[in-house]
C-alpha cells in the first residue's frame, strides 16, 4: 500500500490585484507538485495570476464552539462603522 499524498489548501490571487483567496484543496506529494496541480485544477479559466499552497496540517482553525467569545464582542461596537455617525448633508461627501 503506497503512502497517501498529503492535503494542500490552495489560494489564488485573481486578475485585479485582490488578495489571495482560498479556492479549495488538493492532494500532492510536495509543494512544487501542489502548485502544478493547483494550476490544472483551479485556474483552467483564467481565474488567477498567482498561487499559494500550504499543507493543510499547518493551518490552525478557530473552533466552532468559540464563535461566541471570539466574535460576539464586536457586535455591540457599532461605533466602529462609518454609518454610526450622522454628518449633515451640507458638509458633503465624507
Amino acid at each position, binding site marked *: 500500500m*503506497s503512502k497517501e499524498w498529503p492535503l494542500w489548501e490552495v489560494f489564488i490571487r485573481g486578475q485585479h490585484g485582490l488578495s489571495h483567496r482560498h479556492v*479549495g484543496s488538493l492532494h500532492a*506529494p510536495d509543494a512544487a507538485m501542489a502548485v502544478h496541480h493547483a494550476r490544472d485544477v483551479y485556474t483552467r479559466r483564467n481565474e488567477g495570476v498567482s498561487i499559494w499552497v500550504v499543507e493543510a496540517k499547518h493551518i490552525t482553525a478557530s473552533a466552532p464552539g468559540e464563535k461566541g467569545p471570539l466574535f460576539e464582542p464586536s457586535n455591540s461596537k457599532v461605533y466602529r462603522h462609518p454609518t454610526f455617525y450622522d454628518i449633515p448633508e451640507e458638509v458633503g461627501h465624507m
Partner: protein
Amino acid sequence: MYAQLVKTDADRVKSIDEMDPQERTFQQRIDDNQKIEPKDWMPEGYRKTLVRQIGQHAHSEIVGQLPEGNWITRAPTLERKAILLAKVQDEAGHGLYLYCAAETLGISRDKMMDQLHAGKSKYSSIFNYPTLTWADIGAVGWLVDGAAIMNQVQLQRCSYGPYSRAMVRICKEESFHQRQGYDIMMKLCQGTPEQKEMAQDALNRWWWPSLMMFGPPDADSVHSAQSMAWKIKQATNDDLRQRFVDQTVPQAEYLGLKVPDPDVKWNEEKGGYDYGEVDWDEFYEVLKGNGPCNAERMHDRVKAWEDGAWVREGLVAHADKMAARAAATPVAAE
C-alpha cells in the same frame, strides 16, 4: 442525477420532539438555512449520507470521463477534439473538488477510490451505456450534462458548506458542457439526412437512461424524505425529472428530432409535459452491474489506477528524498 440511490440509515424521519437536544439544535440550524461546516457537530447519519452521496457524485465525474474519452482520438475536427479534451479535463477537476468535499467528513480519497475499484461504491447508471457514434458525444453533453445541471443547481443550496461550495464551482463550469453538446446536435441536424439520422439515433438511446439519472420515484422513499429534511437535497427526484422533460422536449423540437416516447404530450393543466413510464427494471439491473458497459468501465478504471501507480510512487519517492536532503543540510542554503 449523479447520486441516484443514497441510503440515509433512517427508517423514518424523526420529529423535532423525538430528537435529543444536540440533534434538535442541529435541525434548527438546518431549518434556519445555516450552513453546516466540517468541524460542527452533526448526526452520524447526516455525515454518512453525505459521504455516500458526495462519494457517488465524485465517482460519477471520474467514471464519466470514460465514455467521452472514447471519442477524443476520433473527434471530427481539431477544434472539436480540443473542446472535448477540455470537457473531459473539467470532469476530472469536478471529481477532485468533490473528493475534497467528502474528505472534510473524515474519509480519505484513497479509501473512496478503493471502494469504487472494489465495486462497493456506486456511480451513476448513465455511464454504463456505450458511446457508439460521434452523435452520442452531442447527446451526452445535451442530455446527460443537462440532467446533471438540473440536479446540481439545487445542490448549490445544500446544507453542507463544502458540498455546496463545490457545486457552485461545478455549475459555473458545467453550462459549457451542455451547450457544446447541443452545438454538436445542431450541426448534425443541419447536415445530411444521414447525419440527422445519427442524431435521432443518439437521442433514442440516451433519452430513457437520462430520465433514470434522477433516480427512482421518491414519493415513498424514506431516504429521500430524510435527505430533504436535512436539506442535503432540495427537490424530489420526480420534480427534477419533470423539470428536465419540460426543458428538453422543446429543445428536441427545435432540432427537428423526436423524443422516443409516444406518451410525451403537453398538459395544459399542470403546465408541463406528460411522459411515459420509465423502465425501472432496467435501471435496477444497470445499478446491480448488469448494464451494457459496467464491466468495461470498472476494468478501465482499475487499469488506469494501477497503470498510474508508478507515477504516484515515483513522486512520493522524489518528495521524500528532497525532504531528507533539506533536513540533512539545514545551513547550506544560507
